[in-house]
């Protein structure tokens, strides 16, 4: 496509103008790293959320009235279990416990696999407890007195987005701490073997118990997908910062074709460079800058998010005190990265090549006098 000699000379000219190109390189790297970091963080969160939802029940039933949650009872469970197409309905107890010393809420979830003296905690819970020297065990205060549970396991970092503030314990302990009776539940988890029947059964549950909210697995995954959709105000600010930086970058790119560079193009034309050679020179120089800046930007973002766990940005995404201990799972959406490449590199190249072409086609005799 390009001769070896022309590439060599383009690199010589690139080093000659290294100050101008370094400016473009720095701004471009900054933009790519910022946008990539946002993409990486949101992708990691969405992936963890949708991944976790995949193993959940087919339908989750909650009792809500005027936006507030109420308990469900054994009668509700049995009436849903009688519906055709439902293979099982499991009652679940969960709720929030306030840890007043640290001023945080723990999310208590029942898990029958744990014994009455055990609990499994999320990373955030573990850290919060550790601050108050609860290294191996924790005391919960309930209407039935103090309940001491031993910390036997810490939840996988890959599910931290969901499990960060969670404490899993035997359902009997959840009932005791949160004040649930034996036949009372906070949720009903419905199993439907045939995926095509999930929609119908969801509708039937709502008809059967008009105050309940029935949410299918698909709805949960969809809500997770939209949870970090790039519309929030903070993202708009980030995008505006990127847009502003990109405009500065493009202005610098245009200047690479005017002023002293205009004369340079005329000189090269006078010694035999055709219009296509001038465009090739400019393309090679700026492609080297754009590709290397893009790769470096992505690499910096990858390290920032997955190695250093996105300091500053994580607070924007996760917010809570407990959110500090979430670990992002390395997920790279190549399609989005490709779009970012197309929408950044092509304007970057166009904003220097088009002006250069306009100069190259003009009469050069005046410029070289």
């Amino acid at each position, binding site marked *: 496509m390009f001769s070896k000699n022309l590439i060599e000379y383009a690199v010589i000219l690139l080093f000659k103008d290294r100050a101008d190109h370094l400016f473009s390189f720095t701004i471009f790297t900054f933009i790519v790293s910022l946008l990539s970091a946002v993409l990486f963080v949101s992708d990691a969160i969405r992936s963890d959320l949708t991944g976790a939802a995949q193993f959940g029940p087919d339908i989750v039933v909650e009792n809500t009235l005027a936006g507030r949650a109420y308990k469900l009872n054994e009668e509700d469970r049995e009436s849903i279990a009688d519906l055709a197409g439902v293979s099982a309905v499991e009652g679940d107890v969960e709720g929030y416990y306030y840890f007043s010393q640290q001023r945080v809420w723990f999310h208590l979830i029942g898990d029958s696999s744990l014994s009455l003296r055990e609990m499994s905690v999320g990373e955030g819970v573990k850290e919060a407890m550790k601050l108050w020297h609860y290294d191996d065990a924790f005391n919960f205060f309930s209407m039935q007195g103090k309940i001491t549970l031993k910390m036997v396991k810490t939840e996988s970092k890959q599910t931290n987005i969901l499990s960060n503030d969670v404490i899993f314990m035997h359902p009997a302990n959840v009932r005791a701490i949160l004040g649930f009776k034996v036949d009372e539940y906070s949720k009903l988890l419905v199993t439907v073997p045939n995926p095509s029947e999930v929609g119908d059964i969801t509708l039937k549950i709502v008809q059967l118990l008009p105050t309940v909210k029935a949410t299918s697995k698909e709805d949960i995954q969809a809500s997770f997908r939209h949870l970090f959709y790039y519309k929030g105000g903070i993202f708009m600010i980030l995008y505006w910062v990127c847009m502003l930086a990109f405009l500065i970058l493009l202005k610098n790119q245009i200047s690479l074709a005017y002023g002293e560079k205009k004369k340079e193009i005329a000189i090269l034309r006078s010694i035999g460079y055709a219009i296509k050679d001038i465009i090739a020179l400019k393309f090679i120089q700026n492609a080297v800058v754009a590709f290397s800046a893009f790769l470096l930007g992505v690499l910096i973002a990858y390290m920032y998010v997955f190695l250093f766990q996105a300091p500053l940005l994580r607070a924007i995404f996760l917010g809570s005190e407990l959110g500090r201990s979430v670990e992002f799972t390395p997920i790279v959406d190549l399609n989005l990265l490709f779009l970012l490449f197309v929408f950044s590199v092509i304007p970057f190249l166009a904003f220097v090549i088009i002006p250069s072409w306009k100069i190259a086609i003009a009469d050069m005799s005046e410029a070289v*006098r």
Partner: protein
Amino acid sequence: MKQITVSNVDKIYNPTKENAFYALKQISFEVDAGEIVILKGVSGSGKSTLLSLIGGLSKPSSGDIIVEGEAIAKLPDRLASRYRHERVGFIFQSFNLLNGLNVYQNVMAPLMLSEWSGSQMEAKIDQALQIANIAHKKGQKVSDLSGGEKQRCAIARALVMNPPIILADEPTANLDTHNSLMFIEILKTFKAMGKTVLIATHDVLFEETDVIDRCIHMKDGAMVV
């Protein structure tokens, strides 16, 4: 043998507007291969415009310029660029070197359009630098050179492709007498190499040398007989 034939050439700037300006009017002349010709006249007489037309930097409004049998005014950009690359060497009044590069890198510029190997290019650059007597400064940035040295760097660049035609536009205008005389000495080398040279100048020093074959006088865009 006629190498350059200029026939009834006009160059009009802004031809369709009220301020249309005739830079050249009905210019016709011929130059033999190996001839050294001076285009003489005051500033604004059209010498530089005529050189830029012969060099293929711009196109005439009417008339023909035939170089080695080829009508260069009608060439498309690709072929006009090849003509400038292979058959013409330019020496400009303001040298027109690429600042920020050294002498060697400036002289190598035309060669980078070719497919020659590194060693072939090096041999050609060294030869051109020797002829222009600037080989000792080849690693130096052109911005650090004196006017005379810049001129010699520009001469080396004009020679590196070994073109048959050299076009020099006011080559001594920015030089002192010593360096101007050195340029005239280089003209003798051009002569010995068989180059056809056209020089646009109003420097009287050229009148005192016997290396010049012919002088074409110009005034207000026309030839003065």
